[in-house]
């Protein structure tokens, strides 16, 4: 087929979707075509988004308050690097230091909140199938993501188009899709590869417990940035990453009466601040 003319080039371009029919699409339209594992009580017909992020890839989502976002490591090899921003005012974003300090806990799991720098709950982790234990955390909030420099040292490359993309580079691209720059990228959290900390402050890579998923509830409208790349402390000499399934379905933010609302006084006040913020902005009327 010729691509020497506009007519030929258009036909060539339009042939490609059909020719690729045998390949698994990365993003499903409609999302209800998703056939992977879902949370109890959720069916594919409920989904508003379904996507597979390849190893070394990234994605971003903008979701309404109340949306459930589920991230699944389907192979046990994935590490999900996550950042969340207030979609309407992205200078308000995940604050990892406040998240661990306010909740008196560095190892995040179901029941924990992701807090913004404005004293509000951005999201709640409502489900965690990773088998997180107090002595074997399966997620990490302390060691952030990888960089070009360090991945080049460890694997020979950190380029996003290379075999071992650096998390910060992936975040820079994902952030740019929302008008955000490297200046807007704070320390991030990772899921599915744990790191413990000894009594004298030394980290030890715990790693994965196999395929697992976490589910977040958006407590405010969110920009979600997600990268799939090796954990920065992963000691394996070969770059190890896996695909991440990302699905989302509608719901409501946490409200008084939900068990999460009163689980801790710090969390309750974060929900109070988020709820007041949604109300002053005209939501939740």
């Amino acid at each position, binding site marked *: 087929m010729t691509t020497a003319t506009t007519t030929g080039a258009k036909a060539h371009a339009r042939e490609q979707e059909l020719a690729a029919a045998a390949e698994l699409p990365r993003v499903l339209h409609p999302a209800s075509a998703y056939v992977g594992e879902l949370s109890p009580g959720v069916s594919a017909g409920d989904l508003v988004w379904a996507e597979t992020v390849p190893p070394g890839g990234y994605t971003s989502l903008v979701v309404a308050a109340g949306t459930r976002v589920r991230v699944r490591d389907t192979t046990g090899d994935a590490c999900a690097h996550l950042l969340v921003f207030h979609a309407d005012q992205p*200078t308000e974003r995940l*604050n*990892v*230091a*406040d998240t*661990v*300090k*306010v909740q*008196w*806990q*560095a*190892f995040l799991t179901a029941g924990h909140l992701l*807090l913004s*720098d*404005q*004293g*509000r709950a951005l999201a709640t982790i409502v489900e965690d199938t990773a088998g997180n234990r*107090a*002595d074997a*955390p399966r997620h990490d909030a*302390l*060691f*952030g*993501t990888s*960089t*070009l*420099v*360090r991945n080049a040292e460890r694997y020979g490359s950190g380029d996003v188009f290379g075999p071992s993309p650096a998390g*910060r580079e992936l975040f820079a691209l994902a952030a740019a899709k929302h008008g955000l*720059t*490297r*200046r*807007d*990228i*704070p*320390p*991030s959290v990772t899921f599915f590869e744990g790191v*413990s*900390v*000894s*009594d*004298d*402050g*030394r*980290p030890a890579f715990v790693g994965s417990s196999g395929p697992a998923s976490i589910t977040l509830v958006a407590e405010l409208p969110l920009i979600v940035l997600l990268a799939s790349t090796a954990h*920065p*402390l992963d000691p394996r000499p070969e770059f190890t990453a896996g695909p991440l399934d990302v699905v989302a379905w509608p719901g409501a933010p946490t409200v008084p009466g939900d068990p999460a609302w009163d689980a801790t006084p*710090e969390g309750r*006040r*974060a929900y*109070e*601040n988020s709820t007041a913020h949604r109300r002053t902005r005209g939501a939740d009327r």
Partner: protein
Amino acid sequence: MTTAPATAAPLAIVPPEVATDAVVIHDETVAARNPWTRVIAAGDTLTMVDVGGNQAVDFLVYDAHDTELRYSAPDTLQGQDTIYLTTGSVLRDAEHGPLMTVVADTCGRHDTLGGACSKESNTLRYGHHTRAQHACVENFLLGGSRHGLGKRDLVSNINWFMNVPVDPDGALGIVDGISAPGLAVSVRAERDVLVLISNCPQINNPCNGFDPTPVRVIVTRP
């Protein structure tokens, strides 16, 4: 706040590793609860002295010529084998480049995890009644605003002289300090850097012994 003439201040308070042949080019006492900012030239050393004991010094550092390259707690931790800072620790930016190196430390260890107190997070930690209290983020915003920095430029910071242990089950928190009057930490600039300090005004936890006190900042040139 006062600035002594160059070389006039006694060096006794500066750790001997730093003081040898060094010239004092700036010596100032930052009052309790105040911000402080200064560009530190490559090769110069900033010594912070915990004058009254157990006074948290919240600290951020930026490449003076490209403030997008700013302190990164995760990158700093990736480059060493402990979550604490002490002599030998390299403070790294978010692209993993070295900004400063801890060259002397008579306190022993310093916090990288707890971040800064803010009016907003105080409402979560202690109750909505604390919202009106002064906080480190206010100091960072005020100090940063003199250098073109704003909210987007604030990230997880260092807390010199603050004690934040992590238990084996991940429980962490600000507990009674291990610092004392006169203990000091010195950091050498690996390139021209802008330092933002908040002399922490927090009164609801033991990070300042419930009584914020002054901190002395001394810049020396080899």
